[in-house]
């Protein structure tokens, strides 16, 4: 019975569930700006979850990664994305390749797969938070799904960043976080990636007058 679980484990489970919920909300969201806000919210939940793990286990580097999460994924990256949307004057709605209800159904299938795959793996782990491994895997797969099914480059970038959220959750839940160097490296990677992709957006738009990456199929040598 879940009443046997201590409070912090319940909190971590709750935050993990909220992250999964937000991943689905992002999948269902039609507006670009709201999508970015949802991403920021997901980052904030991740920050809270990491903080709880840090307080519970007393591992110092987890405080650092929680702070890094807050700084990067809640403040900096959403701000960059908001600025990009404004500068590129992206208006209107996200254009999915498959319609949204179908995407959601596929998403549920992915969640079932992720949970089943993660179950035997999480039994090997001895951390208090191993149950959330399945959720982390599901978030990664849902973000992947979002990258695959969206036409516009900017939503694909949000999907990419959300995938990193999932990986981070997996790292904290399975092994109480990666070593500091790795985490710093990944955080920097993501930041630089977002900035470079931002520059790409301008290039893509200059070339094709649109952010639809389908046009890029015309880029062939011959």
């Amino acid at each position, binding site marked *: 019975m*879940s*009443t046997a*679980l201590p*409070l912090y484990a*319940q*909190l971590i*489970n*709750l935050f*993990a*569930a*909220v992250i*999964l*919920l937000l991943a*689905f909300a992002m999948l*269902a969201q039609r507006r670009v700006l709201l999508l970015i806000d949802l991403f920021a919210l997901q980052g904030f939940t991740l920050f809270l979850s990491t903080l709880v793990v840090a307080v519970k286990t007393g591992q110092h580097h987890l405080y650092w990664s929680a702070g890094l999460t807050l700084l990067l994924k809640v403040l900096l990256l959403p701000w960059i994305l908001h600025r990009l949307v404004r500068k590129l004057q992206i208006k209107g709605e996200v254009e999915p390749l498959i319609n*949204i*209800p179908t995407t*959601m*159904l596929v*998403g*549920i299938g992915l*969640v*079932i797969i992720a*949970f089943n795959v*993660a*179950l035997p793996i999480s039994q090997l782990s001895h951390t208090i938070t191993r*149950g*959330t491994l*399945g*959720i982390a895997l599901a978030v990664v797969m849902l973000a992947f799904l979002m990258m695959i099914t969206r036409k516009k480059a900017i939503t694909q970038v949000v999907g990419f960043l959300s995938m990193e959220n999932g990986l981070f959750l997996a790292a904290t839940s399975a092994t109480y976080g990666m070593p500091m160097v790795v985490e710093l490296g990944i955080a920097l990677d993501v930041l630089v990636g977002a900035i470079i992709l931002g520059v790409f957006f301008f290039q893509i738009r200059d070339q094709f007058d649109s952010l639809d990456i389908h046009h890029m199929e015309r880029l062939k040598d011959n």
Partner: protein
Amino acid sequence: MMISLSGLLGQIFSIALALVLAPLLTGWVGMCRAWLQSRSAPPLLQPYYMLRKLFNKDVVLAHGASSLFRVAPFVVFGCMVLACAIIPSLSTNLPLAPAADALALVGVFGLARVFIALAAMDIGTSFGTLGGRREMLIGFLAEPALLMVIFTVAMIVQSTSITTIVETLGHRELAIHPSLAFAGIAFTFVSLAENARVPVDNPATHLELTMIHEAMILEYSGRHLALIEWAAALKLYAYSCLGLALFFPWGIAGGDSFLALLAALPLLLLKLVIGGSVLALIETVSAKMRIFRAPEFLGTAFLLAVLGLLVRLLLELKA
């Protein structure tokens, strides 16, 4: 099974309370909506005035109306009274409760829906048929979502009887159930759709493009219409009580005594007042969506409920 006198008394009291409170709840939601939209609010007793007016009027029947058309309001009203009787609002000591568990309750709602849709098609007007079809569309999407919500809660308690659910959830130490959070959101979606509330239907409109519930009851008049309006209020009350019972079960009396029942009354009133104003808030901030978006809305509710089940399996059931 022996039915104790106090149990019987409590059962009768809770039915009477439902009959009295249901129009008040509808009136309260209307008041809150008016305030939020900065209109001057109708009086709290407005639904009562309307019921009295309708009961005093004569019934006008269409030429083609069959007996089904005349029976349907009574069946719908009866279904809603039964639903209010088996959902524990004040006490879990309900002699009628063994008659139907949560799954049968969904069936009772379904029975009412089928009757009102049939009655709407009975006259043969285009509006009635349109409303009946739309209602069935909403219904067949909302029902599985509601069932999934009930399954999620039933898995936690290991029983589908509503009284057992309330007793188990209400009288044990506080625990955070992420699955219940999912189920709660899904249940909110379903109740908005089932009670013809704003994102799906607008109870205050008679615009042919959008109306669902109103289109079905256009041909009704007099006491028939009064019964249907009362049944709609009872349905809102039943859904509110079901939501309170599943997700906020604290304060519902478990014992036998009539006094405990009365003690539970203020808390129920408080919960209903808060619930009603939240409903008004949701209705005010959200826009009515196109009818073809309703499947997506209810599909999301179904998905959330399934997610709740999955999260329950993954997070809360491990050894």
